[in-house]
């Protein structure tokens, strides 16, 4: 398809040389849900040379409202998202390389995948994976772009090793019980808005227009008509364990990861969060009931029915996912509830 990129080449900050750079670059995208399917499509259409997509889930009916690569047919076939995404992206652009990987983006896997990667695009739905991406980014000096949304609210921040603060500077530790799309709902326009910010940053970095890269933390609420840019220079922490002088990359250390264990003979996986913390079980139960789940709770634990599985959450953040022996599936279900 000649002419395919003509309108993008005409945009002078990209031009012919930028288009050639795009075609020579490799993006590793973690997640193929709402942000992943949308960003994946923008980058595929833009002609990024190689796109590796990692996702552990399959397409479900409740995804169709906002996950733009997927169809009713994909739901009926219960296709893994990475595979369904690849199928559609190839139909859109057969001239680029797309590598789908069905599985968990664990630190080990990330270290393997990061070879030759120019940029990591965050399209995941939980902070544990984001903190691992953040450490990998610092360790291998690869930029990454944080993006997230819930309800009509969203945010994006570009992290350039050696230049900007990192996610660990900002958050210090993994937030527990963040709002997720499974507890706070989500509308398509908020997804599109985050995709717009993330994909613009990807293009700037891949064409090496470093001056154009956003140095503020953007957040917005489309229903409330809010948009705010927070300057981030002061956020850089020299003592940060991920990007500071005495860095340890704490989130690549297995000791600090949430631990999942298949409970022997019980068709159950136990998940321990990376840090001890107290869940507000009453609030969580309220949210889940509003979502339409069947929930039972007492002061010590909360039990929720989720399709074929039943999840029991304890006050200390520990979870039991009954009805599966698949650790990756169990972690996915757990993180959908707790983010």
């Amino acid at each position, binding site marked *: 398809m000649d002419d395919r990129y003509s309108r993008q080449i005409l945009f002078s900050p990209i031009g012919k040389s930028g288009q050639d750079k795009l075609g020579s670059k490799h993006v590793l995208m973690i*997640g193929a*849900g*709402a*942000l*992943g399917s949308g960003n994946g499509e923008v980058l595929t259409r833009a002609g990024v040379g190689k796109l590796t997509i990692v996702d552990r889930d399959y397409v479900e009916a409740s995804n169709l409202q906002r996950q733009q690569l997927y169809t009713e047919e994909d739901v009926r076939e219960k296709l893994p998202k990475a595979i369904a995404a690849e199928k559609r992206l190839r139909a859109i652009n057969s001239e680029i390389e797309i590598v789908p990987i069905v599985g968990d983006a664990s630190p080990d896997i990330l270290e393997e995948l990061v070879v030759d990667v120019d940029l990591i695009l*965050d*399209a*995941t*739905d*939980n*902070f544990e994976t*984001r903190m691992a991406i953040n450490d990998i980014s610092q360790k291998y000096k690869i930029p990454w772009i944080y*993006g*997230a*949304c*819930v*309800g009509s*609210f*969203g*945010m994006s921040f570009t992290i350039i090793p050696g230049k900007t*603060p990192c996610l660990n500077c*900002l*958050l*210090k*530790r993994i*937030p*527990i019980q*963040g*709002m*997720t*799309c499974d507890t*706070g709902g*989500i509308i398509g326009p908020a997804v599109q808005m*985050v995709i717009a910010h993330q994909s613009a940053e990807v293009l700037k970095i891949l064409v090496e227009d470093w001056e154009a890269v956003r140095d503020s*933390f953007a*957040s917005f*609420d489309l229903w*409330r008509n*809010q948009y*705010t*840019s*927070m*300057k*981030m*220079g*002061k*956020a850089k*922490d020299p003592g940060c364990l991920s990007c500071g002088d005495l860095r340890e990359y704490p989130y690549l250390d297995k000791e600090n990861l949430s631990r999942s264990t298949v409970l022997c003979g019980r068709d159950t996986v136990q998940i321990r969060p990376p840090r001890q913390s107290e869940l*507000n079980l009453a609030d969580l139960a309220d949210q889940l009931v509003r979502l339409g789940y069947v929930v039972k709770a007492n002061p010590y634990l909360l039990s929720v029915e989720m399709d074929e599985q039943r999840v029991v959450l304890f006050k200390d953040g520990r979870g039991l996912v009954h009805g599966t022996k698949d650790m990756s599936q169990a972690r996915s279900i757990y993180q959908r509830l707790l*983010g």
Partner: protein
Amino acid sequence: MNKVMFFAHLRDAVGEESVSVDLTGKTIAEAKAILSEQYGVNLDSVMAAVNEEFASDEDVLSDGDVVAFIPPVSGG
């Protein structure tokens, strides 16, 4: 006095987009404690901005500073 703005679910919990509170001389950590108590919101791991610039727990507020609390979200 200080204008304090709440984003995302914090706004729902507080019930208003912004409130006026006198936080002059307080650190961000102290401000978080006061507001958590007063509005029953959890400001643990919530980012704070003062006059559209990132602020850390130790930063001290001046009269007239506009404070915004932006909760990092995880959906995607």
